[in-house]
C-alpha cells in the first residue's frame, strides 16, 4: 500500500531517509522520475542514501504508474518520491488511488512564487496543484513528519 507520496527536488536525502521512512514504516522507496531512471550517476548517488530496511526502486513516471496499477506494489509499504509538482500530477492522474500528496520541497527558480514553506511554484505548477485539488487529492505542506503542516486550499 502507498504510505506517502512526496514532492521533493532532493528526492532521497537525510530528512526523507531518517524522518519520513520511519514515520510511515516504509519497506520500499520508489523514485518516480524520468531523468533519474536513465541516469546512472544520479542513481549511484541516490543508492548511497538507501535506508537498510528499504528496497529502492527507480522508475520513470509512466513505468511507476504502470507498476502501481498492476498491483505489484501492493505488498509493500511504499514511499513514493517525485521530483516536481508536475510529476506528482502525472502520477496522481495515472493512479486515482492516490488521495494525498505531501509538499515537500519544490525548488525556487525564475518565475516561481512561494506558496508555502519551502514550496515554490511556477504558474504551470500552480495549475497542476489546482487540478489535483479539484480531483479531490489532499495537498499537505509539511517538511518533517512532526511539523504542524498546512493543507493547501485550491
Amino acid at each position: 500500500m502507498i504510505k506517502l507520496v512526496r514532492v521533493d527536488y532532493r528526492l532521497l536525502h537525510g530528512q526523507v531517509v531518517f524522518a519520513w521512512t520511519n514515520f510511515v514504516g516504509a519497506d520500499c522507496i520508489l523514485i518516480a522520475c524520468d531523468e533519474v531512471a536513465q541516469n546512472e550517476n544520479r542513481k549511484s548517488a541516490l543508492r548511497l542514501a538507501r535506508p537498510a530496511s528499504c528496497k529502492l526502486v527507480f522508475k520513470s513516471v509512466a513505468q511507476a504508474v504502470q507498476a502501481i496499477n498492476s498491483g505489484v506494489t501492493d505488498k509493500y509499504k511504499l514511499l513514493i518520491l517525485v521530483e516536481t509538482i508536475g510529476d506528482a500530477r502525472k502520477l496522481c492522474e495515472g493512479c486515482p488511488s492516490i488521495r494525498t500528496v505531501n509538499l515537500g520541497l519544490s525548488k525556487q527558480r525564475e518565475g516561481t512564487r512561494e506558496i508555502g514553506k519551502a514550496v515554490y511554484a511556477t504558474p504551470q505548477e500552480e495549475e497542476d496543484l489546482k487540478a489535483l485539488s479539484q480531483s479531490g487529492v489532499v495537498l499537505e505542506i509539511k517538511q518533517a513528519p512532526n511539523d504542524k503542516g498546512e493543507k493547501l486550499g485550491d
Partner: protein
Amino acid sequence: MKTIILLSHGELAKGMADTAQMIMGKQKNLYAISAYTEENVNFPAMVKKLIQSSPGETVLVTDLMGGSVNNQMIELAAQTGAHLISGMNLTLVLSLLNDDPSLSTSQWIELALSDAKNGIVYCSRLSQPVQDDDF
C-alpha cells in the same frame, strides 16, 4: 520517552542538535551541552539534573572516547543508570531519535550504533552494484 543528551567539548553538541532537528523536526527530548564554554562550567551537575527530571531512561552521547567529557560522564552514568555512548555522529543521533519501544534500550542502542558505523563510507571507492531493486 527517552531523554537524549548530547555532550561535547565546545559547540559540536549544539551544532549536532541543530542539524538533527533540521532533518527530524523539533525534538522535545533532545538536549545539547557544549562543555568548557563560558556558560557550562559545571556541566556534570547540569546533566545530573536532566537525568533526574527525565520521564524515561536517559541516553548520554559524548563526542570522544577517552576525552574528558566522556570520562566525567562514566561515573555519573554508572550512578544514575543512564546509558553512555561515546563518538557521536549525526547518523547515531538520528537513529536514536527514532525510538522503538518494542526493543529494550540496550538493543535499540546497539542498532543505532550499527547504523552509525555503517554510515561512515568511503563513497568514492564504492563499486557499482550489479542490479537495481525491482518490485
